[in-house]
């Protein structure tokens, strides 16, 4: 799986899911409507940058806090194709993979990226190209790649039902 896009940068560590999607919007079930509240408590103007194919670039412990899946769901609906961070909080990372949003740790690529940087990511190998500079990070475990290729956990279960899992 090869992903290309332009960088939108959140240059902070420990960005929590509350600021990315405040609790008062958690009753919303429609992904498109969720996207209109994405980053509401962090910086609502970030939404204006999500035009075309976006690769979100973030700091360490990205997505800490609540297990609310609204964040990756809204990101997906808003056109974010991949998230590259220095590191991820565990539940947020699971949620991204389960929703088919590639989420990869690579501090060096994050350090190199600027707003608008042209980025290419090879999910299978962990190779990341930032404005022509190559970085290599630990590839995701094969099962996560399988989930991403299927489009997430739900389509994966639909297609593999009754089959041997894992």
């Amino acid at each position, binding site marked *: 799986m090869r992903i290309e896009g332009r960088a939108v940068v959140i240059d902070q560590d*420990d960005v929590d899911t*509350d600021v990315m999607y405040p609790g*008062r919007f958690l*009753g919303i*079930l429609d992904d498109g409507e969720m996207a209109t509240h994405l980053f509401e408590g962090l910086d609502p103007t970030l939404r204006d940058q999500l035009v075309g194919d976006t690769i979100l670039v973030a700091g*360490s412990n990205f997505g800490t806090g609540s297990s609310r899946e609204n964040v990756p769901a809204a990101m997906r609906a808003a056109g974010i194709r991949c998230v590259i961070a220095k590191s991820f909080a565990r539940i947020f990372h699971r949620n991204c993979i389960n929703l088919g949003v590639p989420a990869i740790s690579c501090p060096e690529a994050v350090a190199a990226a600027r707003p608008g940087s042209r980025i290419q990511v090879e999910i299978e190998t962990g190779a990341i190209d930032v404005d022509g500079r190559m970085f290599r990070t630990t590839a995701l475990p094969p099962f996560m790649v399988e989930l991403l290729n299927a489009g997430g956990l*739900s389509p994966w279960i639909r297609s593999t039902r009754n089959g041997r899992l894992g």
Partner: protein
Amino acid sequence: MGRTLAEKILLAHSDAEEIAPGDFVMVNVDVVMANDLGGPHAARELVTMGVDRVFDPSKIVVVADHLMPAKDIQAAELLKALKAWCDRQGVTYYDQGRGGIEHTVLIEEGWVVPGSMIVGADSHSCTYGALGAFGTGMGATDIAGAMALGRFWQIVPGTIVVEFTGARNAFVTGKDMILALIAEIGVAGATNMALEFGGDGARALGIDERMAVSNMAVEAGADTGIFPADEVTAAYLEGRTDRPWAAVSTDDDADVAGRVPIDLSGLPPLVALPHSPGNVVPVSDAVGRKIDQVYIGNCANGTMTDLRQAAAVLAGRRVHRDCRAIIVPASQRIYRQALAEGLLDIFVEAGCVVMTPTCGACLGGHSGIIAAGESAVTTTNRNFKGRMGSSESFVHLANAWVAAAAAVAGEIVHPADVVGRAAA
């Protein structure tokens, strides 16, 4: 090489013959929990998965707590649909007035036993570690997968053993112990780790305070935070559950990722300042901060232990005229017990609002939102920017002694300065 407690639980719930930190495993679940936020999402994902029936209705439990009592029409529609879904699937549903806050309810009602594997669509599902279970939080799609298959994917965590030693000072509770740990290792200090709580200071805690500690394991980034089962656990479970269980513990020669000693003898009551649970200072460093609202409750600290501490401060005193106070017993059981003990009368007489069990204000949903410029002291687990309302508001995390004392003083004070040293 021996195994850690977390590894033993995972191994007992997988097909693997051997596991080590970093391994990928499929893990079988004993209980799958969803609340009224993740539940509706999970029900929708099951449709996407092409799954008509959950794998085993007896292992699935749904609790109405975040939106309950319905805050608006949208919430009412979700709750209505969720109950209908639960009835159709034949799964247990704790409706309004029948349960309370999810993690407290599951522990009180006997769903949680030592050695069990419990996943919940809520990050604070690590609370089940208070009874020696591997409880872990996840998102709604994950939970739908567990409801469909009876298992989930997991990377085996390493284990950090936390050794609490020494006797606690007055007004120092389980809340302060976990805040001290988060201050020590940081809010990502246990990412991809299981925390295990040991030492005489851990064993001295009752289940209420163990819940307070395990609850905030995720605030250090951990998968879970486990107290090995002991006689305190056994006494708590007596008559509460008919699920079989056996105490499991870490082998002496197990390979652990780290050991963190915390000396309780020098530990004062603590406060996590805005806007991070890791932004921890002694209460003395926070004294004098004006407080507009105090909130005592939530899945971390809405237990009888917390309410008794708050009542000891509020009995015969009044909430400061410039402050509001909200008391939220974590479950219907606790609500009734507090009523029977006369605590609710103490709270109301002091000028507090006593709410029904709900997550409402803790996550900035409803029933106690704070305005721009306002500051709160709460016994909850998160003080992120805007967590309880306006992005321009400020949340301080503390134990129930400190929270109740702030309600009386209208500012942060050491509780001894309100009630005297002998009251603790």
